[in-house]
């Protein structure tokens, strides 16, 4: 694709984003459709986003979204009036100690995963195939989303029990062996299902993928495609999985979270050197890479910065949320003519300690 064509696509995507922002802001700040949280916010801040937000850049006026706002109730404050009588789900994040952060959900996860489904090749994720979700369960978006993805593609999704909060607790107590045993418990559940049923596709996390591949050949068990995500994934893991674990099984790495939804990966090329490049589901969500010391300023393409998320759906409005992740800023491409993120990993500034003692 020529640079001119790409520029035209970028320009069109940007126009669509600005239009989408106006629509979503109107929706959330309209007393007939908006949620109590944002309607109260507008009152307290004495400006009307419906008048003043003309496009994406104007969302800077909201400042950074504070994830603490999501902790505690009443959770109905987040339900748009338009969905007040709809079936609402709660998806939680964190929660190994204290009150977990929660977001409401009506249909977003279905929309996101149906869109994602379009990116999966039928050859490796056959329509009608049954899936195994070997990942976190409980009050998690991922658990319902993977099941919906499978059902949307005509299959039945098998599940295991996995409580990640327990894993975090035992690890914080230094009970590494206990955590290892729990992981094996989860893997054993998956293996039992894989051996007992006709399952061709899987969702799993990087660590569980490694653990299950230590025990069996997933290819021999009939797996054709694996959708992998839920935790940090490095380029080296990507390479290791493809070269040494999967024996030709299709590998679809993803980046997602409770607030955003799901970012799809760009098909890897040799030039990417196993980098994992994700693009957000624009215009429903925007990922940007900002200067950690000036979070309203984007870094240059290829430079490292902190991930900033803006979620723009009718169910949930999250402007300018600073993730606890860092990455490199990725340029738009033909398939995704908007900014992407490369090699997302935990934000390094949150990882400092003082070492004492000679060893």
């Amino acid at each position: 694709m020529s640079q001119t064509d790409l520029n035209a696509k970028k320009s069109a995507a940007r126009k669509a984003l600005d239009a989408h922002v106006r629509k979503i802001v109107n929706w959330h700040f309209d007393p007939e459709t908006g949620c109590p949280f944002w309607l109260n916010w507008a009152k307290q801040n004495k400006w009307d986003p419906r008048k003043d937000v003309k496009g994406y850049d104007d969302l800077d006026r909201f400042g950074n979204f504070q994830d603490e706002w999501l902790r505690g109730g009443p959770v109905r404050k987040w339900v748009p009036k338009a969905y007040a009588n709809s079936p609402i789900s709660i998806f939680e994040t964190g929660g190994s100690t204290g009150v977990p952060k929660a977001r409401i959900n009506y249909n977003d996860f279905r929309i996101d995963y149906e869109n994602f489904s379009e990116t999966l090749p039928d050859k490796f994720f056959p329509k009608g195939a049954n899936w195994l979700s070997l990942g976190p369960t409980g009050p998690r978006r991922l658990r319902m989303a993977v099941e919906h993805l499978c059902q949307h593609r005509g299959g039945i999704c098998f599940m295991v029990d996995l409580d990640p909060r327990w894993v975090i607790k035992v690890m914080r107590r230094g009970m590494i062996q206990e955590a290892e045993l729990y992981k094996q418990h989860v893997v054993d559940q998956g293996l039992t299902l894989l051996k007992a049923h006709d399952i061709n596709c899987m969702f799993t996390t990087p660590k569980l993928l490694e653990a299950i591949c230590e025990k069996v050949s997933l290819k021999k068990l009939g797996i054709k495609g694996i959708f992998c995500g839920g935790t940090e994934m490095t380029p080296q893991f990507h390479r290791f999985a493809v070269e040494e674990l999967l024996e030709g099984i299709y590998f679809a790495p993803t980046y997602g979270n409770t607030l955003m939804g799901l970012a799809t990966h760009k098909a890897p090329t040799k030039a990417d050197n196993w980098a994992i490049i994700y693009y957000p589901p624009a215009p429903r969500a925007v990922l940007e890479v900002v200067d950690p010391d000036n979070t309203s300023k984007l870094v240059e393409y290829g430079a490292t910065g902190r991930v900033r998320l803006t979620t723009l759906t009718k169910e949930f409005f999250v402007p300018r949320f600073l993730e606890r992740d860092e990455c490199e800023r990725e340029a738009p491409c033909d398939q995704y003519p908007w900014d992407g993120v490369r090699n997302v990993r935990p934000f390094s500034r949150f990882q400092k300690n003082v070492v004492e003692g000679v060893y």
Partner: protein
Amino acid sequence: MLHIPILRKGEPYRSVEIERAVHYRTREPYVQYSRANVGLVRRDLSTQAQAQKILAGFSIAELMAISIKAGKHFGEDDLPLGDSVQSPQQYVESVCATTGLPWVMVRRNLTKIRGVMEEIETVLRGLTRLPDLSVLDKGFGNFEGQAVSFYPRGDSLGVILPSNSPGVHALWVPALSMKTPLILKPGSAEPWSPYRIAQAFIKAGLPKEVFGYYPTDHAGGGEILRRCGRGMLFGDVGAAKAWQGDPRIEIHGPGYSKIIIGEDQADNWEKYLDVMVESIVQNSGRSCVNASSVWVTKHSRKIAEALAERLAKVMPRDESDPRAEIAPFANADVARRLSSVIDGDMDSDSVDVTAQYRDGSRVAEFQNCTYLLPTIIHVNSSQHALANREFLFPFASVVQVKQSELPEVCGPTLVATVLTEDQNLTTRLLSSAHIGRLNIGPISTMKISWDQPHEGNLFDHLYARRAFQMAS
């Protein structure tokens, strides 16, 4: 830029994840090395028994001969380093570049590592106390008329290595001669020594498959310790705590090594000043066998003053200066933070005695590098926060206690040099479970005798003795 690969059963593997160790002075990347992901480490360790079988095919005598040759290669030869080769002098300069250790100290450590490789028979006899090492080939034998039999406790030794000083490598090197494959996780700033040791052994004839060299993260290190039959961990207080109580892992945390002067020698303290200074300052205070406190029954302030006066003369010097006694910190922030930790614990019951003998502050700059100058703190009580601490530079507290409180008041001590002729005190020290190595008399805490294993006995760690009878 030079790149050091992972060694997977001795085979070089270039990872997509590349780490960089910086030059201590320029802070510019000096060397790249591949970093192994946890899954790769786990995968490789699932077949450790194969490497053990390879070593089982050698006799102890053959392995000792290889070790002796390897020692010569290590000390004298150009050896492979990634796609390049490294001479002994390049090794010295490289270790210096990423750790800050002056050449003279790296050379001293090189000699120490070479020594253990070349003196392997003495080392093994010291570790095993067996007159006939072929017992380990057959699995059984006769010792002073008694039948003995030994079996390996695990299929490999996983070692999590530090960056502070290469001298620690002398502790695990004998494992190869005891038929134990090695899985090594190098320290982030010292990838050089374990790689060079492996290459020296390979050149000497040891099959490469018995080496795993995995620069990896904390989780990868944990996998090495979990998956190898036996483990050895060099780490700070936090890292060591995570593995305490696991008998498979020999922990080398802070040493809290000490000089103890008994009541009977208290008035002779000046006679022991040299041994105290050497114990505190040698190897820039970076070893767990460096004395980090001096425990006395009287004259504590005078001793602190005398040590401070001597140590205040120790100044930063060029890396190539053979008189260099202290090393800079590769990361200046670490030096400043450590100094802040000390200052934070100072109060009216403690005095930085060295402060009055030096011109500037504890944190010093020289050739654009940051040093922590030797520091002597006098404290009024054994309960003081700084009485029993250890830092990565020549640091010692001087503590006055009652003789009746010794040695219990000292707590865990890797090496204790005790200056006394009092039989009662000596008896109490000999029966103390808290002292790893006991030097009676004016012997530097830094002095190592190859036939006197300290910090745990590697043979006992790798082998267990079983009851054994054989019909004649």
